[in-house]
């Protein structure tokens, strides 16, 4: 019987270091933390697989978009290390399941992390540091630098280790008799959360307005809102999906197309003296 593969402690440490120092590596609007995540998975994949083809195949899973609150989100990295370990041991763990878990967790954890770390923890820490800084005392900034880095380092390490343990335990459920049902449910959560992310982050509205008489006007936005709020946002999401998936257009070109649409939409239509989008500029 072949020996079960296990990620070495050195690879785990390196993976954690890659995440803690490089979670925002190559940050762009298109990819955000994707490459930071990919970089942190590289030591693990390198440790688990011998053949280059297997390594490439495993790393391809982590090229999918990822963005969360980096401190709390460390748990997701640890969790996928556990899942990757199971995949290397021949468990039927596909990329869709791993990405379903990632997508399902990144949104809620970002919300939690932003409220706990950015909204609560940092202001408290800064409050203490500002109190210590009274009268130009250098103890304030020194305290903040030491306290923030120490608490974050050990906190993230704890989250990573917890995630790794959780990933190992989750594997048993994911490959058990109800694995297909469980995986489809995970994908369902991921897709639903991505839908909510799209509605939260994308905001498109129109200023198209036709004035027929003094007391009679047609407002397109009101009509669209009556059909479904954020109808235009949904339409543009669908349009981008269609362009990228069906027409195989790269995200950068899609962005340029949207810029062109936005520019054209801002041109005032002659005769009716209105434009589709309002630039918000006043002269």
């Amino acid at each position: 019987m072949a020996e079960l593969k296990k990620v070495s402690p050195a690879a785990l440490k390196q993976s954690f270091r890659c995440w803690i120092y490089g979670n925002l590596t190559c940050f762009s609007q298109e990819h955000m933390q994707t490459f930071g995540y990919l970089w942190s998975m590289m030591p693990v994949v390198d440790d688990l697989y011998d053949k280059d083809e297997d390594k490439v195949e495993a790393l391809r899973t982590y090229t999918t978009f990822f963005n969360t609150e980096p401190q709390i989100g460390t748990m997701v990295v640890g969790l996928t290390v556990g899942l990757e370990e199971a995949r290397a041991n021949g468990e039927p763990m596909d990329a869709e399941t791993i990405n379903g878990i990632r997508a399902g967790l990144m949104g809620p954890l970002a919300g939690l992390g932003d409220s706990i770390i950015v909204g609560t923890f940092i202001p408290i820490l800064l409050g203490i540091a500002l109190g210590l800084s009274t009268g130009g005392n250098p103890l304030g900034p020194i305290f903040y630098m030491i306290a923030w880095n120490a608490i974050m380092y050990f906190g993230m390490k704890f989250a990573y280790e917890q995630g790794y343990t959780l990933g190992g335990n989750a594997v048993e459920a994911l490959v058990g008799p109800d694995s297909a049902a469980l995986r489809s449910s995970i994908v369902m959560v991921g897709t639903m959360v991505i839908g909510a992310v799209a509605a939260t982050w994308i905001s498109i509205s129109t200023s198209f307005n036709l004035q027929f008489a003094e007391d009679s006007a047609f407002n397109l936005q009101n009509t669209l809102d009556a059909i479904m709020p954020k109808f235009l946002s949904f339409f543009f999401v669908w349009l981008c999906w269609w362009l990228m998936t069906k027409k195989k257009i790269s995200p950068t070109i899609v962005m340029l197309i949207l810029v062109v649409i936005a520019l054209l939409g801002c041109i005032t239509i002659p005769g009716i003296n209105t434009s589709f989008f309002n630039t918000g500029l006043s002269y």
Partner: protein
Amino acid sequence: MCISIQLNSLNSYRSRMNTKTLDWVTFAFGFILAAVMGCNLIAAAIIAVFFALINFELQSLKSGKRALAAAGAASIDDEEEEDI
């Protein structure tokens, strides 16, 4: 009113969504939860988990029934073989 398009989420759903109708239905449901009902991401995720649990139960039931049917068919085959 202005246009503000953030494309950072597009890649995430492009890779998640394929041509399956169910994917679009669940995507639209998540979208409606946030857009129409004003749910934030955590609330949307909690509701998604509830639906996922229902889906899990239904799928398990279906696969259980299938397994039961397969076991039943196998036992009938065995009986027929014994008769022969």
